[in-house]
């Protein structure tokens, strides 16, 4: 097996990311996708504060939005939701 090496930055020092860490995309870890029922959602932001991966976004007008590029599907958001508005749906039920 021939080997390929990667250029290593000086002293392995790398720039800090600003929005997300593009080198460790974790969306493909997820097998259950969080899906919110916007009718039920009270926008209390509990799911947002408890997401270990900072994947819950309330900045958009249409309410809660999950960052599916990184969401690992842990389900913490669903468990902490005080009104039970977040369900977990098998990832393969979605085409994209």
């Amino acid at each position, binding site marked *: 097996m021939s080997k390929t090496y990667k250029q290593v930055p000086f002293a392995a020092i790398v720039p800090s990311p600003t929005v997300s860490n593009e080198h460790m995309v974790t969306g493909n*870890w997820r097998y259950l996708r969080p899906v919110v029922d916007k009718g039920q959602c009270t926008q209390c932001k509990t799911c947002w504060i408890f997401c270990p991966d900072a994947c819950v976004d309330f900045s958009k007008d249409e309410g809660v939005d999950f960052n599916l590029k990184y969401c690992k599907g842990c389900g913490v958001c669903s468990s902490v939701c005080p009104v039970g508005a977040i369900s977990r749906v098998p990832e393969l039920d979605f085409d994209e």
Partner: protein
Amino acid sequence: MTLAVAIDPNMLEVTVWTRGVTLAKEARDTATLLAKAGKAEGKHVQSFDNYVDLPDRIGVPCKSYARISPDPIETFYEYENYRPDIVVLAEETLVKGHNILGGAKPGCVVVINTARDPEKLLKWISPKENMKHLKAVACIDANALGAGVMLTFDGTEGSGDDTKIGAGVGAAIAGAVAKATGCVKLESLVSVAENKAAVKQGYEKVTVLPVCKGEAFACGLPEDPQEIKWK
């Protein structure tokens, strides 16, 4: 200098993809059972976790490997399967967003633990340029067989595994692999597994979808494993 020699030309490489921690033991068991069954048939075998994936984290895609060869394994200390003949997905979602056919040998068979129709899963298999090597996709709904999933740290990080080998869904998946690929015989698998019923059920209930039949396959898998009900 490169010598034009084939190293381990007859070795079958099995890569079992799984999810870190939660399904790690079952995937390791699938690989271990296949290797043990090969050993029972007098072959030379190896099985191990992919070191680069360790320590595994909950949900992280990771791999366990098995190798079965009629000859002594010469790449004994190469610790990744670069050219799999058999790709097993212990969890169905792994079909999406992972290059499971990376390095696949012509004639590669993919076995997926899923209740879904194999035809519905084809669109996700990647990389697309390796689809020509894909001989068949086999599906087994191992989770429905009631064998369960074992969670243990025994057997990780190079320790011995004193728990039961092949008691859960990993055994059913191994049975499905045996049927879909013919890499080991059912009897040998049954002889080494804790949950013999699960092995047999996996063997019986697997459905196989041929994909690229008729190509000149270079790998050691039999062209048409016996008793397969081609769907």
